[in-house]
C-alpha cells in the first residue's frame, strides 16, 4: 500500500514552506514516528514524522520551496521501483483545475457576446454565421455590420419621419441646452441662418417641459441628451446659458467628453474678418465683429455689438455683455466675465477667472482671479 505525504500547514500565516533536508535516504525503511525531513517556515523549523512504517520515496528536492499540500514523498509498505512510484503518483494527482481558464467548449469571447447584446442581435445568430475556431470581437463586429446593412434602419433610429440622420448636405439640426433668455437669443440667431435649424431644447426646470419656445419644443432635462443623441434627433449642440459660467463649463466639458459635437451659432450679420479661427460651442450675437487674425477658444458667449479687434487671443468659457470693445493684440484667458460697455486698450492681458464690471476702461493688465470695479456713480435729482 502506498500513501502520499503532503507538505503540512505549519503556521496559519504560511502558504509555503522550505524543505531543508531529507533525514532518510530514498527507498530506506522507516518506523512509525521516525523523523523524515526538516521543513522551515518564516517562524520555525520542524521535522515531519512518518505516520506509519514503510519505505520512503521522496518527491521533492531539498532546498525547494513548496506550497502547502504539495506532494513531499510516498510511503510504501513494500519496496518499489522509481517507475512504480511515478506511475502511482500520476494516478493520484488530480487533474489540474481548469475552471479559471476560458472554457474550451465556449466558442466565443465575452467581448463578442457583449457586442451582440449591445446591438440587440442574438449571439446564436452570430455563431451560426461565423466560420472559424472562436468568435472574437472583430468577427462579431463584421457580422453585425453585415446584418445591419441588410436590415433597414428600425424606426427608433430617428424620430423624424422625413429626414435621414445626419446627411452632410442637409442643414444642421441643433439641440439647445438651457431654456431661458439665452435660448431666445440663440433661436433668434439660428432663425436667420439657413444652414442651421433648432430642433429641441433641454432644461432641468420641469415647469418648462412640454412647452415650446418660438415653436421649438422643450423636451426634458439635461439627462435626456444621451437619449436624443442615441436616437439621432440632433446633429450638434449649443449651450444657451450665459448667467452661470460654472454650469456652462461643466455642461460643455461633460457632454464633449461624452462625444456630443458642439456647433457655433453666429448671427448672420456678424463680421468675421480674414483668418479668424473659432473653436466650438461659441454663441456670437448680432452686429458683433471679430478682427483679422483673432482666435477664439470654445464655449464663449458674445452678446450683440461685441467688438474683438485684430490679433486678439480669447480663451474658453467667457461671457461678454453688449458693446464690449477690445483694441488690437489683447489676450484674454478662460472663464472671464465681461459686463456691458467695456473698452480695453491694446496689447493688454486679462487673466483667467476674472470679472470686469460694466463701464470699465481697462488701461493695464488684469491678473487672474480678480474683480475689476469702476466707480461710475448714478444719481437722480428732481427736474
Amino acid at each position, binding site marked *: 500500500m502506498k500513501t502520499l505525504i503532503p507538505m503540512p500547514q505549519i503556521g496559519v*500565516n504560511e502558504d509555503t514552506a522550505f524543505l531543508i533536508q531529507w533525514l532518510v535516504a530514498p527507498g530506506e525503511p522507516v518506523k512509525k514516528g521516525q523523523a523524515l525531513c526538516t521543513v522551515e517556515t518564516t517562524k520555525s523549523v520542524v521535522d515531519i514524522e512518518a505516520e506509519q512504517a514503510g519505505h520512503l520515496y521522496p518527491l521533492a528536492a531539498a532546498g525547494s520551496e513548496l506550497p502547502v499540500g504539495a506532494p513531499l514523498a510516498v510511503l510504501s509498505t513494500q519496496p518499489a521501483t522509481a517507475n512504480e512510484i511515478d506511475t502511482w503518483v500520476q494516478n493520484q494527482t488530480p487533474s489540474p483545475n481548469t475552471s479559471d481558464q*476560458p472554457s474550451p467548449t465556449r466558442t466565443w*469571447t*465575452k467581448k463578442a457576446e*457583449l457586442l451582440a447584446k449591445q446591438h440587440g442581435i442574438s449571439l446564436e445568430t452570430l455563431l451560426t454565421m461565423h466560420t472559424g475556431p472562436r468568435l*472574437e470581437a472583430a468577427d462579431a463586429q463584421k457580422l453585425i455590420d453585415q446584418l445591419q446593412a441588410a436590415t433597414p434602419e428600425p424606426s427608433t433610429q430617428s424620430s423624424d419621419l422625413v429626414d435621414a440622420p445626419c446627411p452632410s448636405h442637409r442643414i444642421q439640426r441643433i439641440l439647445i441646452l438651457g431654456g431661458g433668455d439665452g435660448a431666445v437669443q440663440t433661436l433668434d440667431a439660428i432663425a436667420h441662418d439657413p444652414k442651421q435649424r433648432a430642433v429641441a431644447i433641454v432644461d432641468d426646470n420641469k415647469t418648462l417641459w412640454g412647452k415650446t419656445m418660438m415653436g421649438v419644443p422643450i423636451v426634458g432635462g439635461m439627462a435626456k441628451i444621451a437619449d436624443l443623441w442615441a436616437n439621432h434627433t440632433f446633429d450638434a449642440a449649443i449651450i444657451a446659458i450665459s448667467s452661470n459660467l460654472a454650469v456652462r463649463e461643466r455642461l460643455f466639458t461633460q457632454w464633449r*467628453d461624452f462625444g456630443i459635437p458642439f456647433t457655433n451659432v453666429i448671427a448672420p450679420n456678424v463680421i468675421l474678418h480674414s483668418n479668424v479661427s473659432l473653436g466650438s460651442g461659441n454663441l456670437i450675437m448680432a452686429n458683433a465683429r471679430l478682427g483679422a487674425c483673432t482666435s477664439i477658444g470654445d464655449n464663449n458667449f458674445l452678446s450683440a455689438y461685441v467688438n474683438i479687434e485684430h490679433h486678439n487671443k480669447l480663451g474658453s468659457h467667457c461671457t461678454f455683455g453688449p458693446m464690449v470693445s477690445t483694441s488690437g493684440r489683447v489676450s484674454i484667458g478662460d472663464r472671464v466675465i465681461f459686463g456691458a460697455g467695456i473698452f480695453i486698450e491694446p496689447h493688454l492681458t486679462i487673466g483667467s477667472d476674472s470679472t470686469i464690471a460694466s463701464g470699465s476702461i481697462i488701461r493695464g493688465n488684469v491678473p487672474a482671479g480678480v474683480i475689476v470695479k469702476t466707480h461710475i456713480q448714478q444719481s437722480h435729482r428732481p427736474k
Partner: protein
Amino acid sequence: MAEDERVIVLGEDILDPYGGAFKVTQGLSSQYPQRVWATPISEAAIIGIANGLALRGLRPVAEIMFGDFITLAADQLINHATKFAQMYNGQVSVPITIRTPMGGGRGYGPTHSQSLEKLYLGIPELHIVAPSRFHQPGHLLRQAVLGDDAPVLFIEHKLLYPAQLALPWQIQSSEISDSSGYPAIKVQNASSPADILIITYGGVSLHLPQILENLAQEEISAHAYLPASIHPLNLEPILPTAARCGRILIIEEGPGNFGWSAEAAVQLYDALGPSLKTPIRRLSALPTAIPAARHLEDQVIITPEKIEKTIWEVLFA
C-alpha cells in the same frame, strides 16, 4: 532615516531581533539604536508621544501593530494631532506618520482583520494614504514622513507585505501625479477605450493582475484607477475615462455602507451625471464580523471570484 535625523520610529515590539510583528522594522534598531523606540502596550500613548515629538520639531513614525488597534488612538489623532495646526493659528504643525497594517485574508479573525481606515475618512486635516500593488510603497512612505506636514495615517495591507513589485504580466501602468504629493496609478490591460473602469485602493489591487489577464483573454478592455491618497480623494484625473466608459465598479475591502466607495460614487455621480451607461456598482465586504476560518472569511471579505463575477454583471447590465 538616513536623510533626516529628525525621524524617530516608535511602536510595540519593533526592536531587533524581533523587528515588529510583520518584520517591517527588522534591522532598523540595530542601524539607528537611538532613534527606534519600543513602547509600552498603549496605542494612545504611542500617538500621544508622537504628537509631542512632532510639536517639538521631530518627524515621528509611529507603528500600530494591527490596524484594528487604531481605535485606542482615536482621541490623540482626532482631537489633538489633526487640530493643533488650526487651533494655534498655523504656528505649529504635527507631521506624524502612523503606519499600520489592515485587511483580512489571513484567517486572523474578527479583531485582527478589519479595514478600519473607514472610521477616519472625513476627519479634516488627516491624510490617509494606502499603497496598492502597483505603487512604489517606499516613495509614498518617504512623502508621508518627510514631505507632508499634516498627520498621515499610512495603511499597509497585510497581503501586500510579501507581494513582489515587479508585474507578472503585460499590464500598462502609469503614474498620475496628484496635488496631494501621493500619485495615483492607472493600469489597463489594453490600449483600447475601457469597457469597464475599476476604482479601488490598497490590498484589493493584489487580485487585479490576474483579473485583468482573464479579462484580456475575453477581449475586454479593463482600466483600473488606484489613488494612493484615499482621503482627501481626488477623482478628477479619471473623469474623462469614466465619462467615455460609462461602466464603473468601485471596490472597497471593508463593509461599504457609509464608506469610501459611497463617497467615490457620489463624487462620480455629481461629475458624470447622465453619461453613465449603467448605475455605478459597489463591491465590499459583508457588514458582519470577519470569521477566523478561512473558508468562512472568504464569504465575508472580497475575493477575486467575487470581483470577476461582479465585473461581468456590470458589463452585461
